C-alpha cells in the first residue's frame, strides 16, 4: 500500500510576507555600510598603501580583483545552498533568494575577470593569461551563465527553481574537481610566464584594505540581493494580500495565500 500526500507547504522557513518589509528596512543600511567601507578600503588601497617594488602602482587593482573573486566563489556556494534548502523543504523564500543571488554572483565574476585583465596588461604585457585562477574564474562565469540561462528558459517557477537547484548543486560538487583539473592543466603546459595572480608581498595595510573591500562587497551584495529578492517575491505572489498591501493596492477579493 502506498500513500501519496501533497508535499507542498509542509515546512515554512520564512514567509515572503514578513521578509518583504524587513528586507526593505535593511537595504538602506547595507547600502550605507557598503559605501562607507568601500570608500575607506579604496582610500587605503589606492592612496595609502605603498607602491610595490616590482609592479608599481598597477597592482592596486588587486583591491578590487581579489575581493570580487572571493565574492564570486562564495556567492555561488551560498546560492547553491539556498536553492538546495528551497528544494528540500519546499521553502519558497529560499528559492527566491537563490534566484536573486545569481546575477550578483555573475557580476562579481565578470568584475574579477575584467580587473584581472586590467592587472595583467600593464604588469605582464598581455590582456589575458591562461593561468589556473583566471581560467577557473572564467569557468565559474560559465557556471553562472548556465544557471541563469536554465532558470530563465523554464516558465514554471517551481520547475525552474528545482532544476536550478539541481544544477547549482551539481556545479558546486564539480567546482573543486574543475579547479584541480585546471591547476593540473596549467602546471603541465608551463608556457605561461609568471601569473598575474601572484600577488605582491602583503603589507599589513594592504591586507586591511582588501578585507575592507571584501566586507564592502559583502554589504553591497546583501543590499542588491535583498532588493532583487523583494521584487521576485512580489512578482510571484502577485495575487496575495500582502503583495497588494505592499504596493498600496486595495484587493477586496483575494485572501492571503501565504
Amino acid at each position, binding site marked *: 500500500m502506498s500513500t501519496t500526500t501533497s508535499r507542498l507547504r509542509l515546512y515554512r522557513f520564512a514567509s515572503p510576507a514578513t521578509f518583504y518589509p524587513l528586507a526593505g528596512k535593511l537595504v538602506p543600511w547595507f547600502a550605507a555600510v557598503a559605501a562607507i567601507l568601500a570608500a575607506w578600503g579604496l582610500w587605503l588601497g589606492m592612496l595609502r598603501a605603498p607602491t610595490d617594488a616590482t609592479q608599481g602602482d598597477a597592482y592596486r587593482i588587486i583591491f578590487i580583483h581579489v575581493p570580487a573573486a572571493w565574492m564570486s566563489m562564495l556567492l555561488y556556494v551560498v546560492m547553491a545552498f539556498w536553492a538546495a534548502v528551497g528544494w528540500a523543504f519546499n521553502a519558497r523564500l529560499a528559492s527566491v533568494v537563490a534566484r536573486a543571488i545569481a546575477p550578483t554572483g555573475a557580476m562579481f565574476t565578470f568584475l574579477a575577470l575584467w580587473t584581472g585583465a586590467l592587472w595583467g596588461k600593464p604588469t605582464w604585457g598581455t590582456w589575458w593569461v591562461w593561468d589556473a585562477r583566471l581560467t577557473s574564474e572564467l569557468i565559474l562565469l560559465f557556471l553562472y551563465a548556465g544557471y541563469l540561462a536554465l532558470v530563465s528558459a523554464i516558465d514554471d517557477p517551481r520547475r525552474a527553481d528545482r532544476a536550478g537547484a539541481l*544544477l547549482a548543486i551539481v556545479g558546486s560538487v564539480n567546482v573543486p574537481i574543475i579547479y584541480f583539473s585546471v591547476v593540473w*592543466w596549467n602546471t603541465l603546459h608551463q608556457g605561461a610566464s609568471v601569473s598575474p595572480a601572484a600577488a605582491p608581498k602583503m603589507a599589513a595595510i594592504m591586507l586591511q584594505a582588501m578585507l575592507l573591500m571584501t566586507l564592502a562587497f559583502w554589504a553591497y551584495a546583501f543590499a542588491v540581493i535583498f532588493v532583487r529578492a523583494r521584487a521576485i517575491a512580489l512578482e510571484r505572489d502577485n495575487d496575495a494580500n500582502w503583495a497588494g498591501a505592499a504596493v498600496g493596492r486595495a484587493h477586496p477579493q483575494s485572501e492571503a495565500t501565504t
Partner: protein
Amino acid sequence: MSTTFAVLVARDLRLAARRRIDAALPIAFFTVAVSLFPLGVGPEPQTLRQIAPGVVWVAALLAAMLSVTQLYATDLADGSLEQMLLVPDARLAIAAAKAASHWLVTGLPLVVVAPVFGLMFDMSGEAIAALVASLVLGTPVLSLLGGLGAALTLGLRSGAVLLILIIVPLCIPALIFGAGAVAAVDAGQSARGHYSLLGAVVIFTAVLAPIATAAALRIATE
C-alpha cells in the same frame, strides 16, 4: 530494475538501427568539425600533430552534446517517457539506459573513427593508441553528463545550445585529462597520471550522474 534497463537499451538500439542515417549524423559532424581545423590553422604537420589531441577531443565533446538533446525529446513527445516513468523506481534505470544507448550509438562510433583522424593529423602510433584509450574512458562521461543536461532541459525550446552551456563546464576535467594523456604520450612521457585521474572522473560520474539525472527527470515531469 535491470530488466527495465535492458528493455530500454534494446529498444533504443533497435530504433537507431532503423534510422541509420540519423544515428550517423554525430559522426558526420565530428568529421566535418575536425577537418575544419587544418583549414583554419594551416597544414603544417608539426602544428597539426600538436593540436590533434585537443581538436579531436573538443570535436568529440561537441558531437556528443549536439546529439544528446534527442535522447528524451521524442519519447517525451509521443508519450513513451510517461509510460517508462510509471514503472516503480524506474528513473535511475531510465537515466542509465539512455546514457548507455547514447554511448553505444554515438560514443563508440566516435572512438572507432578517431584513429583515422589521428592518421590525418600525422600522429604517432602510440599517440593514436592513447587517443583511442582516452576516448574509450572519456566518451561515457560525455554521455552521462549529456543525459543529465537532456533531462534538465526536457521539453524546453532552447534545446541544444542551452544544454551545451550547462554541461560543457562539467566536462572540462574529462577533456583536460583525456587530451592531456595523449599529449603526454606524444611528448614521450608517461600518461599514467592522466589515465588514473580520468578513470576517477569516470567512476565518479558513473555513480553520481544517473542519480542526478533521475532527479532531473522527476523535476521535469512532475
